[in-house]
């Protein structure tokens, strides 16, 4: 018999708050986390705004803050969200077998030491337009910091968490762009189902709000650049005038636990994770397959895995990035998989408020599904002012909505063609 997997703890650090409740209330109230960039001076960049996590004191979340002096924002967010998740699951004091407690994060790289990099390159500039690596090395060796460099590696959040909590179960870190934390949670689900672990700390963490991150996305013209004076209006999923996504950052971590294990220790059961679907577009580097072939396969696989039909799904948390292409194709895909049910199934994109947390987006969106089930209310899509004829589903525009919510589907589609979908449902014994 398949082992059932429940969510017993949730922690988050996102642009709308450092707690699950604060961010959820913000979402329901229609607040936006998007502001001018304050992390660095982006005033002359094509994009000048993002959804950023407010400053916080890491000492509130870790045993020894001195271990994190060189850590990037990705690590800091993961430690904060991880601590809250462990607390929420009642695992800080509980006696559990840490050999069967694993980690699976969708986790971004650390924050590049931009000033040192560009300085060392500037010193090494040749007349020929290349970089002299001898002068580069000499300059870099003076300025680069060993531990800041180590913290760049994308497995650092997982490694810090393994150290902080002494977790020895199977440990993984993946980086499949915007799908990463949904993929992480899905594979973590499988690790528990197949008996390789009883508990998994899983989710995502990322910040690409740094000079080269914003540069890279601006160059790809993937992120929104307007309106600079009212940036909270810039993330407009499914709106006719959408102009790309808005970068966000943060982390959401969940504790997944085998049902009997959770019940035996009297854990609170947030919801049951019942389905995972995963596929690849195999189409192009950055474009989604125009007929949504890959996303449709992943959605169908997740529904089949969960044993639910489209009519059973009460809410779809869309990938909904706010790019022209994603929102059109995702709408098409939902119609493809859901048939007539597509028009009866509410869909929304919390990226309209939170921005796009990239590797952390999927876990954060799954969190909102779990809360929708708890509170019987669906979060809105902000800024959906002008309907797009090609996006004609019920996107819950502007304001949250009361609804009967038992089963939710959460979609994540990544740059590079990875498609990952999760189905979560109210726990019923």
């Amino acid at each position: 018999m398949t082992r059932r997997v429940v969510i017993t703890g949730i922690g988050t650090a996102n642009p709308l708050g450092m707690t699950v409740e604060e961010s959820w209330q913000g979402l329901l109230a229609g607040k936006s986390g998007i502001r001018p960039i304050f992390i660095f001076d982006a005033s002359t960049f094509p994009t000048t705004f993002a959804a950023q996590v407010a400053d916080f004191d890491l000492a509130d979340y870790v045993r020894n803050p001195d271990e994190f002096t060189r850590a990037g924002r990705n690590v800091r967010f993961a430690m904060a969200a991880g601590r809250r998740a462990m607390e929420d699951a009642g695992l800080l004091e509980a006696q559990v077998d840490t050999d069967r407690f694993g980690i699976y994060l969708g986790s971004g790289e650390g924050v590049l030491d931009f000033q040192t990099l560009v300085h060392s390159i500037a010193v090494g500039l040749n007349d020929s337009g290349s970089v002299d690596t001898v002068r580069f090395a000499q300059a870099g060796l003076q300025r680069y910091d060993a531990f800041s460099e180590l913290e760049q590696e994308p497995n650092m959040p997982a490694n810090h968490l393994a150290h902080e909590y002494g977790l020895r179960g199977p440990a993984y870190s993946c980086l499949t762009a915007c799908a990463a934390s949904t993929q992480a949670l899905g594979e973590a689900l499988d690790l528990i189902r197949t008996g390789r672990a009883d508990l998994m700390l899983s989710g995502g963490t990322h910040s690409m709000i740094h000079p080269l991150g914003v540069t890279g996305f601006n160059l790809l013209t993937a992120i929104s650049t307007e309106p600079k004076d009212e940036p909270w209006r810039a993330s407009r999923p499914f709106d006719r005038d959408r102009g790309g996504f808005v970068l966000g950052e943060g982390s959401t971590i969940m504790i997944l636990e085998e049902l009997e294990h959770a019940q035996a220790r009297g854990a609170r059961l947030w919801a049951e994770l019942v389905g995972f679907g995963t596929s690849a577009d195999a189409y192009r580097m950055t474009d989604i397959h125009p007929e949504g072939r890959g996303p449709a396969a992943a959605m169908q696989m997740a529904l089949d895995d969960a044993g639910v039909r489209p009519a059973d799904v009460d809410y779809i948390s869309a990938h909904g990035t706010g790019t022209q292409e994603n929102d059109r194709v995702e709408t098409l895909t939902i119609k493809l998989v859901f048939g007539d049910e597509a028009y009866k199934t509410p869909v929304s994109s919390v990226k309209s408020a939170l921005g796009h947390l990239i590797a952390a987006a999927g876990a954060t969106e799954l969190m909102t599904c779990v809360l929708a089930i708890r509170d019987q209310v669906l979060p809105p899509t902000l800024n959906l002012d002008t309907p797009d004829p090609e996006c004609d589903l019920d996107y819950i525009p502007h304001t949250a909505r009361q609804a009967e919510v038992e089963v939710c589907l959460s979609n994540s589609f990544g740059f590079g063609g990875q498609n990952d979908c999760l189905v979560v449902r109210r726990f019923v014994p």
Partner: protein
Amino acid sequence: MDRRIVITGMGLVSPAGDAADLADAVRAGRSAVAPIRQFDASAFPSSIGGEIPDDFDPSNGVRKEQRRYIKKNTKVMSRDILMGLGAANRAILDTGLPIGDDGQPPLPTIDHARFGMVFGTSFIPTTLDDLAGPVRAAQADAEVNLNDWGAKGIPQMFPLWLLKHLPNMHACHTGVLWDAQGPSNSLTCSDAGGLVALDEAVRIMARGIANLMLAGGAESRVSPLLLMRYALLHRLVTAAEDPASASRPFDRDRLGWVVAEGAAAVMLEFRDAAEARGARIWGEVLGTGVSTMTGGINACDADGRGVALAVRRALDAAGVEPADLGAVYAHGPALEQQDRGEAAGLAAALGDAARSVPVTATKGVTGHMGAVSGLADLAVACHLARDGLVPPILNCHTPDPEVRLNLVTGEAREMKGDLVLVTTNAIGGQTAAAVVRVNR
């Protein structure tokens, strides 16, 4: 239905060449480490490395339009991605599956929705020259303020710059090239990436959603930025006069890592399907195990517990007793804390068998290929097992007395049976192991 999973294709891009070349170099004890050629590394504390041959061509053997795709997209493929794609192509061609004619879909006999891949990769450091123009435009007295970067630097950048560095692009391009619509993951677990990818690929097949999976690993540590990083972390050889003897796994006089580069991939199929089509079978994946270290981000478990857990999990999953192993291919990157931690973990997991099971390592030949490690070793093991050999560890002349393992030094040994254990570990992080029955 037979759910046993076999390896029907192997592809390798290594400092010594392809899989057969590397197996030969390991058997002969021929080092592939040399002064770094790709750039002038003379001012770095370490300036030697294991670099792939200059004539490496990721397009060897693929179809005309695939070659065109690679050529057209080479500008967005950093070295890691090109090597990963090259190894994947070799592994796919090695399966003997019909690849189809030009103008037809690739791999016409497979179910593309059930063909997936998992790569062990890394966030790829930028090529310095890509930033030269923008930095020149934005700098003043060798400093760049962000306002000038935004106004003058960004417009000089290559528009697709970001895509050269994403760790999922190896899988993306491979998937596009071969129309692999099944699961696609990219695991960033540093040294452990390749074997962790194998672990996940096997689990995905067992889950029933794929019947053809590629498990790969690709990384170049031969880059100015990684040479900088690992030199500052004191992980690299700085003292060796002779590159060929610089990488000394498990030797008392080890000197640290030698940076290297490469890519490896294996193709996995269910045994019954592979046999039904008359495929050549390299070996069977009997079990895999993954765990982690917990001593902090720059520390290895002194007692090797993370390694031991991964090894025990792999042995348990395989249903194999340590004493029945014919060979262990250890990670052995020739860094004291990493070698000793691994040795302690292996000794603990093997128990009494640690005295008898021969343990070898290949990084004396190649240097440290990062995420490629475990899969490259698997390829060597599959090749050399056909000759019944466990190769010696190159440059391990005086085994570290702290290492309580039956290290193979000097001469190759005869291999007993057909069971091989491969292990990898990332400092402060993931550990992974696999038990494979090699086809002798």
